[in-house]
């Protein structure tokens, strides 16, 4: 297994579980399951036990390994020099399980669906660009930017709304951008995170070759997950592009007064997506946008920026739902955090977080008091 030489170095001290000030446990799977086995230290010790044949690959073991949301809070808080590799180690273990073919059925179904349909929704590729029909966003044709929507933005109801909001805003602000529509393929970030390295490579290489064939130089992603893999994984496969998350584009358009904003009175709180924040260090772009809206009051949750508590959707859990269910599911905990700030709107910058929280708001019975809006949806209200 990759990283095998590191696994025994975990002391299981548990700093990885916390926020920086220790005010709460910040590992989403530990918060849900509460056995130490579901925390990073537990996983490290169990992976080692499994490699040493002291435990076997079981349903429980798979649940433990695949419930990691790859949110990188452990990477942020582990005190040891190998902290940067904590998520990589979990993914390496998943790769081993995938190679052995013994994985949770939900994971298998997800990977199968991507393999066969090119998306986890088992929808036809031609539907990918449907969200753009009544928007000024056109098919990519040598535009300055490729607007990469991703699976959730293309097929999920909330995702499509966000794609529409972002696409419309950017196009109306004069950004030259186009989408791939039916030619778009899954970016593979979750495929990689779920340990299917071969399929990920296939997807990434397919995307890279298509982007190159179309002459794409710059990409705006809707989803921080695609943003992450385009920046972190594609270059070593030969895909060097200038990649932006749409919040970065909005921040700069607003700064240069290309999106004039009117007053919009609201108290909002912001959830940092793990793949924008912790994985890629971008905490400011969405905040810049919010701070630019006159009348808007941003109230931070206690756990913000590098201490943000994951929605529970990362690492493929959005699709596999291993972390879902019950009042301790991470999305419900996070929605309660948001509600506790007194904000009326929970602002997100990720289609997966958006959907996770919309579901959680219903489970928590907060439909009348907490609205989940994407940064772009909020900006539209302030136009």
């Amino acid at each position, binding site marked *: 297994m990759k990283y095998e030489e590191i696994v025994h*170095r975990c*002391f299981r001290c548990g700093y990885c579980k916390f926020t920086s000030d220790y005010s709460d446990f910040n590992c989403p799977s530990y918060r849900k399951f509460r*056995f130490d086995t579901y925390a990073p230290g537990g996983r490290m010790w*169990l992976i080692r036990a499994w490699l040493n044949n002291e435990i076997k690959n079981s349903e429980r073991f798979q649940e433990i390994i695949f419930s990691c949301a790859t949110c990188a809070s452990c990477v942020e808080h582990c005190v040891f020099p190998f902290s940067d590799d904590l998520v990589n180690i979990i993914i390496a273990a998943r790769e081993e399980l995938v190679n052995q073919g013994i994985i949770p059925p939900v994971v298998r179904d997800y990977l199968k669906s991507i393999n066969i349909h090119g998306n986890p929704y088992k929808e036809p590729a031609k539907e990918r660009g449907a969200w753009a029909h009544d928007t000024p966003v056109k098919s990519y044709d040598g535009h300055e930017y490729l607007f990469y929507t991703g699976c959730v933005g293309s097929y999920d109801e909330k995702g499509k709304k966000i794609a529409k909001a972002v696409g419309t805003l950017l196009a109306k602000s004069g950004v030259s951008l186009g989408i791939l529509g039916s030619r778009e393929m899954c970016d593979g970030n979750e495929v990689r995170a779920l340990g299917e390295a071969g399929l990920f490579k296939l997807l990434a290489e397919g995307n890279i070759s298509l982007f190159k064939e179309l002459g794409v130089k710059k990409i705006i992603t809707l989803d921080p997950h695609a943003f992450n893999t385009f920046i972190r994984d594609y270059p070593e496969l030969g895909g060097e592009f200038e990649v932006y998350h749409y919040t970065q584009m909005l921040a700069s358009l607003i700064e240069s007064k290309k999106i004039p904003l009117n007053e919009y009175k609201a108290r909002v709180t912001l959830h940092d997506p793990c793949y924008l924040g912790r994985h890629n260090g971008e905490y400011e772009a969405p905040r810049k946008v919010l701070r630019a809206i006159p009348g808007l009051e941003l109230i931070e949750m206690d756990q913000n920026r590098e201490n943000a508590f994951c929605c529970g959707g990362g690492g493929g859990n959005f699709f596999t739902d291993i972390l879902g269910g019950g009042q301790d599911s991470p999305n419900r905990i996070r929605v309660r955090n948001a509600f506790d700030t007194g904000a009326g709107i929970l602002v997100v910058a990720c289609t997966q977080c958006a959907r996770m929280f919309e579901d959680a708001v219903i489970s928590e019975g907060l439909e009348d008091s907490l609205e989940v809006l994407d940064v772009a949806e909020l900006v539209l209200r302030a136009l």
Partner: protein
Amino acid sequence: MSDIIRLLSEIVGPQFVSNQPEELYFYGRDPGLMSAHKPDCVVLPKTAEEIQEIVRLAVSEKIPVVPMGAGMSLSGLVIPLQGGIVIDMKRMDRIIEVNENARYVIVEGGVSTGLLKAYLDRNHPRLRFSIPDSPATATVVANVMIHGQGRLSQQYGFNSDMVSGLEVVLASGDICKIGSCSLSPDWFSKGAPLPDLSGLFLGWFGATGIITKAAIKLYPKKKMRDVEIFITDSEDFIPGIIYELTHTEMVEDINVFAQPLPMIFKDNQHVVIYYTGDTDEELEFKRKMIFHALDRFIKNKDGGFMSVASGMKETLLEMPQRSASTFADVTKGGGFEYSGPIIVIEKYPQCARKLDELAAKYDLKYHATARVIGRGHCMMFAFSFTFNRADSGMLDRTRQALHEAGEYALRAGGVFWKPTVDEQKMAIEKMDPHTLDLMKMIKKNLDPNGIMNPGNWEVA
């Protein structure tokens, strides 16, 4: 067993019970060097009432119960030596009450030291507790139960001396209150002026009952803290240095350490001196007193205050000190363990020399650390070795070195702190027989069925 699992599920909810191999593996060991032993199952209760029911079930089924916080003692105190039910206390994480004026806090059995620190920092900025250097996951209750020490131990003694009340689930399943709270709504004293019954539970590692709540004393938190390091080239000067420093009554905490690497620490003994103040003037006055207290050592060139660069200062002033855990990675191997006798400070030189000798003999990387407890009344001296978990030879050598350190400390007049079962046996062999009889009587009466963390403080 399936019946027990079902019954436990009824008590705490099925998602909080496990007899799966993964949990049995993990909860059957700790990060130290004691042999693993699997529990039969692990439960995560939320309330004291649930623990009562678990204990009653355990009594009726005659199966052991072993309470566990973060499992960070390193000496195997939460390894279920005879199987049974491991009770992971960490879901009992409520901070129940802070009495600002009487300066105490009541916490549930699973509240971590990290959480309590964060809570006080945010809500009671003028109060603090004696934070140990164990990781922030360590629970407050486990820490006092093992007679831990912390940042305030030089001033106020063992962290267990700072307990001001307990709630315990006895082996009968009854809940018992210890201290002023047994007849008053206020948790200000663990014993006095009543007979102090807290000793029936503190230091017993769960062998007499399960602590479900504890009140601990809080202390004034000054606005500023600073640290100085006095270094000397001979361990022989350490007792004198500590005597002078404790005499000032100006010091928050005193730790001594020696280690061969990095080079800045090679061949010297380091006395880390923490002090606090509400104003610059107060801090400066204390600094001056501390420096002057050691003038004779400076004048004789026997020691001096080293420059502490800002990075090192930051590391030292951190609470809890995360760097304490990173000792586990010195050999890139994920482990360290220490034999940590409580011993009088005049024995520091011989302990330090013994540690050098053991490290050379067993070819191990070491760290000597001593924490002053009380105004020089005693210290915890840690014979600490770091090891590579993946190197079985090194694990054996570390075990031997620790065993030898333990034997040495006992001979030198030390008393084991949080002893492993092996050290407990060594202590029992040496103990006054009447003391032993008394312990036996207590254990027999409080745990007639022998199900409370059995194997620990087992008096034959």
